[in-house]
């Protein structure tokens, strides 16, 4: 049984259909990549899986761990073990990164966490991501550079330990060093947590160090092609035009 199973998913935003029946199956611990040109509906798929109220599922189903989560609320989906790393993380003034992660962790696990244990874990994860420790006490994403915001997303991923992480354009807008650090964080997640990855990207930098199990190409809100890692090289060479009918 697949961890994430999407069947015939249609999604509309403000009554305009963006996804016209997507099928996707991700097994536990697998790494899948979703590629496609701008505007193909890749990010829409991520938001729809996460249950954003702005993305209306008009047909099809999303199941996770054998449960139908098509109509589930976002927080319940998160609690079941899905994490979405945002392309544009939101700034939340007055809430520190540290207190937010602790709060989220307590929500997800349903347990109180001792401050001392938490701080140790957080410091370790931040070090792995080459983040300045002072960021822990800064307001969530407020005044963070693009790179720091993405690192903060991966930090949350490492701390919350979901069984499926959806990374939405995590590598976009990052310089080479930041991409390397973020990639290292993703590798650490694979290694420590052993979770599945669904990587939404239109470039391939972030994939270099990862074992990719499956690549899905989405064009115009539909599955256009599916294959192994070699598909990435193909796209690098020939672009997406070949899939556009």
């Amino acid at each position, binding site marked *: 049984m697949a961890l994430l199973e999407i069947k015939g998913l249609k999604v509309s935003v403000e009554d305009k259909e963006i996804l016209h029946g997507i099928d996707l199956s991700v097994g536990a611990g697998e790494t899948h990549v979703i590629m496609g040109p701008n505007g193909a509906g890749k990010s829409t798929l991520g938001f729809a899986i*996460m249950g*954003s*109220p*702005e993305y209306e599922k008009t047909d099809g189903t999303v199941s996770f761990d054998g449960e139908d989560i098509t109509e589930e*609320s*976002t*927080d319940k*989906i*998160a*609690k079941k073990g899905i*994490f*979405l790393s*945002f392309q544009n*993380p*939101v700034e*939340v*003034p*007055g*809430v520190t990164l540290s207190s*937010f992660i602790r*709060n*989220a962790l*307590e*929500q*997800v696990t*349903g347990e109180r966490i001792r401050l001392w244990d938490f701080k140790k874990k957080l410091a370790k994860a931040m070090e792995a991501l080459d983040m300045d420790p002072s960021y822990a006490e800064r*307001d969530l994403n407020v005044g963070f550079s693009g790179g720091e915001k993405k690192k903060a997303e991966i930090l*949350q991923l490492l701390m*919350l330990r979901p069984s499926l992480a959806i990374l939405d354009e995590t590598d976009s807008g990052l310089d080479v060093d930041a991409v390397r650090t973020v990639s290292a964080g993703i590798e650490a997640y694979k290694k420590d947590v052993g979770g599945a990855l669904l990587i939404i990207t239109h470039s391939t930098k972030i994939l270099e160090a990862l074992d990719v199990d499956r690549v899905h190409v989405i064009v115009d809100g539909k599955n256009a092609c599916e294959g192994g890692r070699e598909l990435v090289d193909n796209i690098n060479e020939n672009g997406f035009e070949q899939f556009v009918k």
Partner: protein
Amino acid sequence: MKEKTQVADIDRSMYDFRNEDKDAYRIENGLTEEIVLKLSEEKGDPEWVREFRLKSLKLYNEIPVPDWGPDISGLNMDEIVTYVRPNTDMKTDWKDVPDEIKDTFEKLGIPQAEVKSLAGVGAQYDSELVYHNVRKDVEEQGVIYTDFESAVKGEYGDMVREHFMKLIPPTMHKFAALHGAVWSGGSFVYVPKGVKVAIPLQSYFRLNAPGAGQFEHTLIIVDEGADLHFIEGCSAPKYNVANLHAGAVEIYVKKGARCRYSTIENWSKNMYNLNTKVARVEEGGSIEWISGSFGSHISYLYPTSDLVGEGARSDFTGIAFANTDQNLDTGCKVAHRAPNTSSYVNTRSISKGGGVNTFRSSVYVAPNAKGSKCAVSCTSLMLDSESRSDTIPAMDIRTSECDVGHEAKIGRISDETVFYLMSRGLSEDEAKALIVSGFADSVSKELPLEYAVEMNNLIRLEMIGAIG
């Protein structure tokens, strides 16, 4: 984790417990000369206080109800009991306070806080203080912290008389006159020259009797170069009849002194909170107001700073949370009456469930107040479209050689932020509560830790209906 999801169903049991009305003495309802005289006799006032009460009562009857703020026609003075004496006299050891009253303050965490982080505590139950104590080392510094009655009658009687209701004369407005007529309880603080009180003093006012009024008087004198942090807390259980709070706080900040006055007000939602606070700041002195308004049905509250000495300074940090059936008219007033004075006003307001917040500021800069600075900033958060938030700034600037600024912002919680937080496992209510706590952070970080925690709990209470 036990969490209620019905936002409407707020569990206020933490503040809402009430004790049976077993007061020793309760004056009859209403307000007449006869009642005031009886109250005065009951309290054993000196002559001048009795005269002051009668004069104030006369003014009360002459001065009209304010016609510019929230409607207070639901407040009928004929039904308010102005004096309720608890069934005990004042103690200096919690062990001696009757169990029922002691329990009340224990539930509110007062004796616990006293042990941990306060230099002195006064606890008022209805109209009289039931407990007053100050730490020995603070007393040895020469700091006077007593209930107001002892101050009036004791060795500081002259000092009290000289300062009592001079900053808030009964002519100021109708409820100042009312206060002058029926005041009871409160605290007197005197910090001698150069003495710095390292940890705060706190007075807590609990109104237990239904249909009663609380009119405590707080007089603080911080002498030259001295330093004080005073905390005022207040709460009451909810009744179906109107309760009234018309206290008065007068603070004298002498040359080079500093006073920080923090309040977390959490009256029940049948309370009319018509409180008046004024500080007079001399040369180089500073007053810092920290003000959290959470409870009450209707509030009129505008702490006032009168900057009379060169270089005097006022800082006001305030937050008001208006939920269903609450109309909070809050803000502050500053008068710059000397050169190079400065004032900073930073307020936040949150409106939810049809609650109404009005922020009023009044800034006066006198012709001689050259080189003065004033910055007023007010930010409002509206949690739904049925709530309301208004900003009414008034400025009267009589010199061109000063720098005055005002900014106001009104915002809403964005769906995007809520979704982001929910994607990390927070429920919608949790997410909104966190955003609101973050919004209030600039105020809560000005508070001592315990009070910041209490404030966050109050926000959660209003947002989610439970304390996590």
